[in-house]
């Protein structure tokens, strides 16, 4: 299965390494070559430097054959743009974006983009730890 990861920050690089180790075909795109080097020499996949939602870059990453596009840059607008292009132009079966600013949740919803909201998840986990504390 081919998976494209957009954004190679902490989340993007960790995800890329784990999925590549699990045997998936991974392509990672980031506009900053430094961040791509975080993947290290052990990364068994494609690392592409370029504008994250650029047509030719996405094609180079093999978007026409991709089953998943995961957009995890720290910029919400970039995640939305990349997701819309993957979904509506390249018809990628499943597109998931990260929400950085929880206030932007509605925008993703209006534009019908599937999301992961780390802030909400983490705060929920912390809350349940506190409430689950026997003391």
């Amino acid at each position, binding site marked *: 299965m081919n998976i494209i990861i957009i954004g190679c920050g902490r989340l993007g690089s960790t995800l890329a390494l784990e999925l590549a180790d699990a045997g998936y075909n991974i392509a990672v795109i980031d506009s900053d070559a430094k961040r791509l080097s975080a993947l290290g020499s052990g990364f068994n996949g494609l690392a592409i430097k370029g504008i994250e939602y650029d047509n*030719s870059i996405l094609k180079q990453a093999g978007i026409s054959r991709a089953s998943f596009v995961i957009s995890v840059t720290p910029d919400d607008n970039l995640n939305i743009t990349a997701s819309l292009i993957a979904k509506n132009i390249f018809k990628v079966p499943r597109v998931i974006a990260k929400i950085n600013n929880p206030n932007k949740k509605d925008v993703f919803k*209006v534009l019908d983009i599937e999301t992961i909201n780390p802030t909400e998840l983490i705060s929920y986990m912390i809350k349940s730890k506190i409430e689950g504390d026997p003391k």
Partner: protein
Amino acid sequence: MKSIIIGGGKIGFNLLKTLKDRGYNVTLFEIDENICRAIAEDIDSDIICGDGTSLDVLKDAGINGADIIAAVTGKDEENLVICQIAKRGFNIGKSIARINNPKNIPMFKALGVDQTVCSTEVIANLIEYEFDRDVCKIVQTFDRGAMILVEVAVKEGNKWINQYVKDLSLPSECVIVSILRDEKALFVRGDTQIKNGDNIHIITNRATVPEIKKQLHSGGAQNAKQKK
């Protein structure tokens, strides 16, 4: 007509000024507080300091009743998101996006942005046109370059001089509509002869202009054959 501008850079500022002068009801969004203040000192208009890509900010500012929205920030992804929100979230009739990188134009169009304006491309075209405007002048542009009316000045040494229009081997996507000679318009037929000093008006498109220039200077393939 109520209009909304997002982005208070040079383009946003000047657009606000122009629209205001024409009596439009305009609201400008800018995220940077200092820039907002600077604009407010210059122009008496509705300026909202906030993120133009946020639904709540747009709602509070009354985007619902707007007829037209112009996204002119320096970031293409921001402009795209704004236009998408306007269209799908608020049903605004017309959205215009500024594009900084010409490579993004086809994708913006595919995603349904009504109008795109690419400043980089416009400037590059203008400069290119300045380089050879004494030879080939664009008189009028229709539908942003899909059809243009150009005026070609025939000068000493051009291969078209003394040729009949029917003998010219022109590219298929161009029509000679008239010739201005001694301040009189000639309506061109096949047997019209081109003279030195003529101004030829041609309907064509942007892509064909370089070909026409080449023909004018080299005389085209037909002429080359005759010489042999």
